[in-house]
């Protein structure tokens, strides 16, 4: 490789690193501003209600479909595995742990990243491109307080009941499959669920909901706010928001589990 090619490559790396760290700095400041504006929620309660409907009620079908599918799949696969060891009656316990601690919140997080995150990214990106965000600032409205903070609060509030619903739907579908596919009595299934679940299991699962809410909202909104380059730019920023938030959800899922399970 010639010296000039190396120079060119290193300057490219240098530039992308610089851009990455500048973006990180901007994201950090953006996130702080989103939290600082929380006391203004009274002023933006209508925006909050709109966003709560979008993040909550409107997201319910996709959360239900995915959690029911995962619960059913778990029941079939884990049931088959346990049958080999003659421990089919443990299906309730193993499904409950998987759904409540891990798969319920994780699937909900990924689905909401795709649904709520993409909506945030596309909507705010389009507003950025059409100068509507500049218009808000120009006429004296803080765009982060108006557009980001209500989304953040809505996600923080509605993701918790959504997690509970996803858990219940997943467990219920697993119970149905256990009864009809593995011929396990529902009493045996549920007896292996509730009496054996401890506080730690719920803390692991439900702590993930607000963490995912913060990740999805801030990452998708930030990418919308920095969209540039016309409609193609809106597409790019939306995709980036979903990819980054989904990746962060997977990483956060692991660390929250590790942190809680090691410390409780």
């Amino acid at each position, binding site marked *: 490789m010639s010296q000039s090619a190396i120079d060119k490559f290193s300057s490219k790396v240098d530039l992308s690193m610089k851009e990455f760290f500048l973006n990180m700095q901007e994201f950090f400041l953006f996130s702080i501003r989103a939290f600082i504006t929380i006391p203004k929620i009274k002023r933006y309660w209508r925006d909050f209600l709109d966003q709560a409907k979008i993040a909550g009620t409107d997201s319910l079908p996709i959360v239900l479909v995915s959690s029911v599918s995962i619960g059913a799949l778990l029941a079939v696969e884990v049931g088959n595995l346990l049958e080999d060891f003659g421990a089919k009656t443990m299906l309730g316990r193993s499904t409950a742990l998987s759904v409540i601690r891990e798969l319920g919140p994780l699937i909900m997080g990924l689905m909401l990243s795709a649904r709520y995150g993409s909506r945030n990214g596309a909507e705010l990106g389009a507003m950025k491109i059409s*100068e509507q965000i500049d218009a808000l600032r120009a*006429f*004296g*409205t803080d765009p982060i307080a108006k557009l980001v903070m209500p989304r953040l609060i809505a996600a923080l509030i509605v993701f918790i009941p959504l997690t509970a619903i996803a858990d219940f739907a997943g467990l219920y579908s697993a119970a149905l499959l256990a009864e009809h596919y593995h011929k396990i009595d529902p009493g045996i299934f549920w007896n292996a669920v509730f009496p054996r679940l401890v506080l730690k299991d719920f803390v692991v699962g439900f702590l993930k909901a607000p963490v995912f809410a913060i990740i999805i909202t801030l990452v998708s909104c930030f990418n919308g706010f920095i969209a540039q380059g016309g409609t193609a730019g809106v597409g790019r920023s939306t995709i980036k928001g979903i990819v980054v938030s989904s990746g962060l959800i997977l990483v956060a899922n692991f660390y929250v589990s590790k942190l809680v399970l090691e410390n409780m």
Partner: protein
Amino acid sequence: MIELQEVTLRYGNREILKRVSLTVEDNKIKAVVGPSGVGKSTILKLILGLIKPNSGKILIDGVDITPLKESQLYPIRRKMGIVFQGNALFDSLTVSENMGFFLRENLKLSEKEIERRVEEQIAFASLQGYETARPEKLSGGMKKRVAIGRAMIFNPAMILFDEPTAGLDPVSSKKILGLISSLRHKNNLGAVIVTHIIDDVFQVADSVAVLYKGEIIFDGETESLHDSTHPFIRSIVSEKILEQ
């Protein structure tokens, strides 16, 4: 009064504005002309404090806005209204809601007072009958008039126009220029117009600044543009529309 003093702005290594100085007096219409992509719209964003310069001062009624925080800028911004090139109307709101949006957001006015002010602007922009229409149902000229009405809603002292007639048909352009003139003559407002259409400048502006390669190469009375010997100015005066 708006004053830009030795304002320099860089994006990365690219210098957009080089020590630009400009004064816009109250109750006067100032045009800023120059080729596309030269930084004309950037000047409007600098005046509103939407972006910060790398160096230099921007004075609004004697107050330097460059060191001010976002929250300190809001009352200063309300002294001005802006009409964006793409209008920046909210698609989900009707004409009336668009016009009243910032009153509802930022001022504690009664709904009756907001309606009165909106009606006033709808009459000014000749949009009676379209109050409940959404922007997607309006023509380019009508959207521009909604944007002008919205810009007037706080009763500002100065309106900033970003390419007000770009992309409009001649009839709509004439209407918009008529509205801009009436701001000056009937409402006693000042305005800054950035444009690349020289005819607009001769029709409405009291004075003009020509921005070329990041520098102001002319700043004076509109009519004295004809006397300039600068080759770029001579070319724009003869060709009427700047394209690059």
